[in-house]
C-alpha cells in the first residue's frame, strides 16, 4: 500500500517521514508522511479513533513512533531543549494545575520555557486570551471554557514556532473561540506552523492552508488549499463520504 504523504512545503519547518505507531497489535498511525513550512496551517479531520491525536503527539515528540522520524527545523523530536522551545501544545485536556491560579500556571509554563521576562509574557498572553481579569483565580474555580483559554495562553506564552492543537475549540464560547482564532491567525502571520485537529469543519477550513481527512491511521484525502477548492458544504459531503467508506 502506498504511504500517506502530504508534501506542500518548499522550505520545511516540520517534516514527518513515514511515521507509524502501534498500541499492542493495533496500528494507530500507519506510514504517514507530511511536510509543512513556516506559516502553514494543517487541519486534521477524521472520525474518533482515526489516529489524529496519536499523530499529533508524535509530531510534538510526546510519543515515540515505532517507525519513521519527525523533524522540526531539521532537528529530530523530542530533541534538545532549543528544539522543544519551538513547540506549543494545546489539547482538549487543560494541562493545567487546578490548585494554582491562572497566573501561576502560565508563569510556571513561561519559566519552564526559559523566558527571561516571564511575568510580562504571562500578562501579555492572558490579555491576548481575554483572561487577565481572572489572573488570580484558582484554575479549579473557572468554567471549562475559561480553563481552555488559560491552557491556550499557557501554550502560546513563549511564542512557539510550531503549535499543535487537539480540539482546541472544545468548551470555548464565541468570545473565546474568536480570541483563539485571532491568536492562531497572528501566529500564522508571524511564520509559525500550526497543526489543528478539530471536528468543526468550518473552523478548521477557515484557518487551514492545507487539510487532510484521516481514517484508520492514514490520510484518506489531502487538500493543499482548501479555501480555494471547496466550500464547507462540499467538504462536509466529501468528509461524510470518506468516513462512511471506511465503515
Amino acid at each position: 500500500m502506498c504511504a500517506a504523504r502530504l508534501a506542500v512545503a518548499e522550505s520545511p519547518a516540520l517534516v514527518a517521514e513515514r511515521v507509524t505507531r502501534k498500541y499492542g497489535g493495533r496500528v494507530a498511525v500507519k506510514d504517514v508522511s507530511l511536510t509543512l513550512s513556516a506559516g502553514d496551517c494543517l487541519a486534521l479531520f477524521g472520525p474518533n479513533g482515526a489516529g489524529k491525536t496519536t499523530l499529533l503527539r508524535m509530531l510534538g515528540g510526546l510519543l515515540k513512533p515505532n517507525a519513521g522520524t519527525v523533524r522540526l527545523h531539521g532537528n529530530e523530536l523530542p530533541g534538545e531543549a532549543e528544539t522543544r522551545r519551538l513547540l506549543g501544545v494545546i489539547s482538549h485536556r487543560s494541562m493545567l494545575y487546578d490548585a494554582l491560579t491562572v497566573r501561576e500556571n502560565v508563569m510556571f509554563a513561561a519559566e519552564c520555557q526559559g523566558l527571561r521576562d516571564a511575568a510580562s509574557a504571562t500578562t501579555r498572553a492572558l490579555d491576548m486570551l481575554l483572561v487577565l481579569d481572572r489572573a488570580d483565580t484558582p484554575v479549579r474555580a473557572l468554567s471549562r471554557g475559561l480553563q481552555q483559554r488559560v491552557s491556550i495562553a499557557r501554550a502560546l506564552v513563549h511564542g512557539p514556532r510550531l503549535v499543535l492543537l487537539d480540539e482546541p475549540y472544545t468548551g470555548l464560547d464565541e468570545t473565546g473561540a474568536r480570541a483563539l482564532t485571532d491568536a492562531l491567525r497572528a501566529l500564522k502571520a508571524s511564520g509559525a506552523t500550526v497543526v489543528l485537529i478539530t471536528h468543526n469543519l468550518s473552523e478548521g477550513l477557515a484557518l487551514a492552508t492545507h487539510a487532510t481527512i484521516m481514517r484508520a491511521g492514514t490520510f484518506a484525502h489531502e487538500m493543499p488549499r482548501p479555501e480555494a477548492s471547496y466550500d464547507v458544504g462540499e467538504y462536509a459531503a466529501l468528509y461524510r463520504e470518506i468516513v462512511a467508506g471506511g465503515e
Partner: protein
Amino acid sequence: MRAHGRCGVSASFREPSFVADAVRIARKDLLIEFRTRSGFLSATVFAMLSIAIFRFSWDPTAVTSIDLAPGIVWVIFTFAGLLGLNRSFGVEQADRALDALLASPVSREAVFAGKALGNLCFVLAVQVIALPTLALFFGLPVAPEWWGVGAIALLAAVGFAAVGTLFAAIASNTRLAEMLLPMLALPFFVPVLIPAAQATSKLLAGLPLTEVIAELKILAAFDIVFVAACTLAFPFTLEE
C-alpha cells in the same frame, strides 16, 4: 539568546538550568500540596494514628520502648511516605499537565529531580511531626543522639524519595497506581530501611554516633546509587 516571539514580538530566553528547573518543579509541587494539603494531611493523620495504635497495644513489661520504637518509626515513615508519593504524579496526570512539561525545554532528568525534591520535602515534613510525637508517646529520652537519628532520617529519606519517585512515575501510567506503587517500591526500600532501623536502634539504646558510622556509609552509598540510577531510568518511564 533571542528568538522570534508571539505576534512578532521578540522574546529573550535563558539557557536551560538543571538546578533551576528542578527547584521550580519542586516549588510548584509544594505550593500545590500547601494549597490542597491532601497528601500531607492524610500522611500525618496516618502517622499519628499508627503511633497511637502502637502505643496502646504496647505492653511495656514485655518489651521496652527503646527496642520497639525504631521499628515503628520506619514502618510509619514508609507507609506515610507512600501516600505522598502516590499524589506526586497524580497532579501531573489529572489534566495531563505532564505533557506540557515534557514538551517544554525542561529535561526529563530535571523533571525527576524536581519531583524527587518535592517528595523529599514531603517525607521530611512528615518525619518532623512524627518523630517528636513518637518520642512523646513512648517516653523516649531527650538526648543528643536525636541529632544522629535526624541525620539517619535525612539520608534514608533521600533514597526513599528517589526510588519512590521513579516507581510513582511508573505506577501513575496505570489504572491501579495506588495499589501498584507499594508492590513495586517496597522491595527497593529494604536496602534503605534495614540500615536506617539498625542505626536508629543503636542510637536510641544510647550508643554514640561513632557506632553507626557503618550504617551511615551504607545509607549514603545507597543514596548515591539510587539517585543516579533513578535519574537515568526516569526518562524511560515516560514513554508510552
